[in-house]
């Protein structure tokens, strides 16, 4: 019963032009991704390193038979690196890119909440010029007086050189 009402609620909330976001933290900052693109949340486990790739691409793991890359989001965003502990969390995201389903894991400090966010209240990301890269940010939202940085999952998964690598071979140096 509860499940039914939950899905009903979900449908209703979607009808009302709002979306659910999974929020997680990187240091002091709080980020959010569309919850529908989250496949699962895992604890950190050692990866197999991939040679000659950017350092934020930590390596690959075996996710039930599929080879899935793990990206350190702190390093990706040029934040200070922190040690991996048993509490370090990997958020596995899935999206469709160029007609193919693509799965990838993001290393984050911790997962905090699921928030309903009204689409109207989402601000576009301010322009910091060249100081801060805003390429992955789809917008900013206010949740309980805290700022949530919403990430564009498609860009996040694409800009890791996954797609450009396949098309133009400029990453081989």
């Amino acid at each position: 019963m509860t499940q039914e009402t939950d899905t009903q609620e979900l449908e209703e909330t979607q009808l009302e032009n709002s979306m659910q976001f999974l929020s997680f933290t990187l240091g002091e900052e709080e980020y959010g991704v569309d919850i529908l693109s989250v496949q699962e949340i895992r604890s950190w486990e050692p990866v197999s390193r991939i040679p000659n790739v950017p350092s934020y691409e930590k390596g690959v793991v075996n996710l039930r038979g599929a080879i899935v890359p793990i990206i350190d989001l702190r390093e990706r965003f040029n934040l200070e690196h922190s040690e991996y502990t048993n509490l370090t969390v990997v958020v596995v995201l899935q999206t469709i890119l160029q007609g193919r389903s693509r799965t990838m894991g993001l290393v984050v400090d911790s997962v905090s909440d699921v928030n309903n966010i009204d689409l109207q209240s989402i601000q576009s990301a301010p322009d910091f010029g060249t100081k801060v890269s805003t390429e992955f940010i789809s917008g900013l939202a206010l949740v309980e007086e805290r700022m949530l940085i919403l990430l564009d999952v498609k860009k996040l998964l694409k800009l890791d050189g996954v797609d450009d690598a396949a098309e133009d071979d400029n990453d081989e140096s």
Partner: protein
Amino acid sequence: MSIDMAQFHQVFFEESFEGLDIMESGLLNLDMGDVDSEVINTIFRAAHSIKGGSGTFGFTAVSDFTHVMETLLDEMRDGRRQITQAAVDVLLGSVDCLREMLSAIQDENDIDEVSVAEHKKALEIELNGASGKDNSPATPVESPETVVIKEMESATESGWKISFCPHADLLKTGNDPVRMFRELSELGDLEVIVDLHGVPALFELDPEECHLSWTLILKGNVKREEIDDIFDWVEGECDLSIQELNLGEALVNMQQTEPSSLVEQTTPSDSLITENQENPELKKNIPTSSKPVQAKEKKSKGAASTSIRVDTGKIDTLINMVGELVITQSMLSLVGEHFSPDKIDHLKNGLVQLERHTRELQESVMNIRMLPISFVFSRFPRLVHDLSTKLDKKIELKLVGEHTEVDKTVVELISDPLVHLVRNSLDHGIEMPADRIAAGKPEVGLITLEAYHRGGNIVIEVKDDGKGLNKDFLRNKAIEKGLLDPDAVLTDKQCYELIFMAGFSTAEKVTDVSGRGVGMDVVRRNIQSLGGNIEITSHLGVGSTISINLPLTLAILDGQSIAVGDETFIVPLGSIIESIKINDNMVNRVAGKGETFRLRDEYLPIVRMHHVFNVKSAKATKLTEGLLVVVDGQGVRCGLFVDDLLGQQQVVIKSLEANYRRVEGVSSATILGDGSVALILDIPGLVRLSNQ
């Protein structure tokens, strides 16, 4: 009735292509002198189901076309028509045309109407009498006329006169004329005239027999096929004649006269002149139609059949095994629930069973991907038939071991190289009939395609009894082309391998069949990229054999695990030549940097794995501390410097690109026994990487 028919399209296309293959092989097997009616029936059935299917899905172009074929085949089946080589050739051409039409529809391209019209015309000419052969030069210029006639046929407000005389036992077969008439009346205005002459006196009358006959006048825009469909079921049980009203006479005339006079006869009609004016448009369409084909080529590649037909037997075995696995699992969980040390034997037994079942399961799952090589071989009879006609050679093709099973991927990738090899044998290998007789050989040349298993490999051989390879000729040619040093000493095998060099062609003149010298090196590269190799043996004047050695599957690989620091990599076992420990005096440096070592008489580059892959934890940094694995990857040889060898194992190949990207020096990944991921090395890529 809002069923989305599109979901069945794929099935229809697969079945239709299969049907076309059946028709093709049937036609090729037709023996002119002594025709097996069963073969004709098979061909007819295949055509019939394509017609039915295409009609259902609304591909009218296909069903109209198939209908003409079917009519011709039907007459052959009933023995009303002599089966001639000309007719078979026309039918073969139509099979090709149908295949093109179907793949055009599948890829959502436009159908090449000109070629369709051409083939249809050829069929109709064949259909309209034995004299058809004289009219056969069906030039593309004429072809639009057929379209015109077809259009006119369907466009004119006409009608049909049907005289229908059922045999007495029609009713016993469950056919009811009344129902048929009702169906006819749905097509147009139906006028029924009954003929009571056949009815006997009352006391002689058997109520289960039919003594009536009818003349039906059907008015309206009705296609002949629609009427045929209604009478399809009673064809054998009645005397039926269907004639066209109004224009009927003209059309009957037209069908009997030769095509060139068709136009003259029909042009006076106003409607036709306007139709004819449309012809230039039709021609204009030809060049434009080639563009979308190119643009959509990518798509058609992607649409290449991703489904697979599996023998139900294989599925049954699989289900049995899963059953066994479930039983073992429940047994194990029972042991685990109330575990005490005395049950350790139970546990061990259970684990042994589990291992066995898992392995069996793995094998049978792999088995599902296996297809008989006949999927590839079946296209060759046609190829040989066409090519030998073209080259004026007499050739018999023998297929051996068609049921040998190979992985689906191998089947898909091997077919182009094989086509090339068979063409080569046909063109270069087999001599002209006169030369053969002069050489004391039978007039008909023999090409054998054979497939068999050897170890974990499949061997495919292309054998011909032609003139064989001339070593001196090959050698001179290579020197002449600057591909070979005139002083080089070559073994026989090396001589033959010259033909795999790029830019080497021995054909005296370039034909459109072969001889451009771009083929064989591509063939070898393709086969090597499948992890196989290709070998030639040949005897001058006796023939040559080209054998291709391929791994059975591309999904599993025999690998050697190597350790570099705390990382593990997999080297394909097939590419390892040997592993050696080296000492300092074996190593030479080129320009102070590039390290080489001497293996017997050869200097090979050393690829330091920990440098190339930036492994910081590597234990061995001096060459004497570690091991050198000598590898050969697609002709590139080198020594891989690693810490240690771990063990050999079969690994399941997993794509790295599915979720990630291509990594230089790595071909794919696999999952090791402990669940961690190991990278499978790509030797040529590694060498490139170490040179940078």
